[in-house]
């Protein structure tokens, strides 16, 4: 099948021109630009929901629906995560067998630092989430790691989140190509369709926040991790970020990855970075 060489050349030229016209950032598309991405991401939601106050986006579905917000505020008077919070506080203060405590593993004794997680570790060249750091702290002190999706991890992260409540999310991307790659990998995961339902995270949390999938109102992607960990009535129990990613995957009939696998840590890095400036509101209560 021989296409005349000129025809081929012409179509390539046309494609290039078309490409340049359609997206001014076509040149920039290859160079990863987190600052621009975060700006565009936040503006998308601020314009799509002009009457939602900026800091309210962290309240997920409750920023989208007045009736549900009332139900939520009623619950917040005596929230169901109260027990996990107290358990986390107690665990945080209980020394390991070797006498050390979690406070020795974290800057500022672990108090009021949740807004800086996840961070990019330039020595290891990968994203470190709060949950991963907690288990590393346990292992470094001769203790068995906790499950990423069970109550103990949720209680610990609930307490650490509580000590950061109100502080703006403050994620840093060092000038390191591997950090930019992790950010891009997280962004790619966020927009990639998966599962037999053929949904991506964006299909629900960018295209239709505020709408319902059966009884549940979809949360906007902006600030969606600021309330983690969450007590979900659906689970009638606490859930970590890992548990949320795993269950979201299975809902679209995609086989979930290992908790704290690269893709999950990177998408947490991406989602947290684009929410910079919005307050930490964890632990949260959700439907």
């Amino acid at each position, binding site marked *: 099948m021989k296409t005349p060489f000129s025809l081929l050349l012409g179509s390539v030229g046309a494609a290039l021109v078309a490409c340049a016209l359609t*997206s001014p*950032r076509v040149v920039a*598309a290859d160079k990863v630009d987190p600052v621009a*991405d975060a700006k*565009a*991401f936040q503006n*998308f939601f601020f314009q799509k929901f002009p009457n939602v106050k900026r800091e309210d986006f962290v309240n997920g579905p409750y920023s989208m629906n007045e009736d549900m917000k009332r139900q939520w505020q009623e619950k917040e008077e005596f929230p169901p995560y109260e027990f996990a919070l107290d358990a986390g506080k107690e665990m945080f203060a209980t020394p390991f067998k070797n006498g050390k405590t979690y406070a020795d593993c974290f800057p500022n004794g672990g108090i009021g630092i949740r807004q800086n997680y996840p961070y990019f570790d330039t020595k290891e060249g990968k994203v470190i989430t709060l949950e991963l750091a907690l288990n590393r702290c346990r292992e470094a002190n001769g203790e068995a790691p906790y499950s990423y999706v069970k109550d103990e991890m949720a209680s610990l992260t609930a307490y650490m989140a509580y000590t950061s409540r109100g502080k703006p999310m403050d994620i840093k991307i060092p000038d390191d190509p591997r950090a930019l790659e992790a950010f891009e990998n997280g*962004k*790619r995961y966020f*927009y*990639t*369709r*998966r*599962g*037999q339902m*053929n949904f*991506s995270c*964006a*299909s629900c949390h*960018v*295209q239709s926040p505020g709408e319902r999938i059966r009884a549940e109102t979809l949360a906007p992607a902006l600030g969606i991790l600021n309330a983690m960990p969450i007590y979900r009535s659906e689970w009638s129990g606490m859930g970590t970020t890992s548990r949320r990613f795993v269950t979201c995957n*299975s809902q679209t*009939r*995609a*086989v979930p*990855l290992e908790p704290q696998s690269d*893709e999950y840590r990177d998408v947490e890095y991406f989602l947290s970075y684009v929410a910079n400036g919005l307050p930490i509101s964890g632990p949260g209560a959700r439907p």
Partner: protein
Amino acid sequence: MKRACLLATLVALTIALPSARAATEADYKAAYAAAEAAAKEAASLRHQWTTTVSTLTAAKKAADGGDFDRAFAAAKEAEALAKASIFQANSEKEAWKAMEIR
């Protein structure tokens, strides 16, 4: 949306193959092997579907029960699902950019 319909037709097409005579154990074994290979590839692309896994188990269960007709059909369906998820993984390598907020 166009890509989703394409996906659906692909899956429907492969399942609708009429199996004229009753499937023998050999037919089932061949179909199961093909399905398993496709599922392995889907898993390596980290795009496996939960329905592929459950259909594969159903095929095996039917075969253990000696019902090779159902086992063969289930293995065929599992293969179709795995192939569709591979198609999804490859097409999404570029397609995700369409939805990106810029």
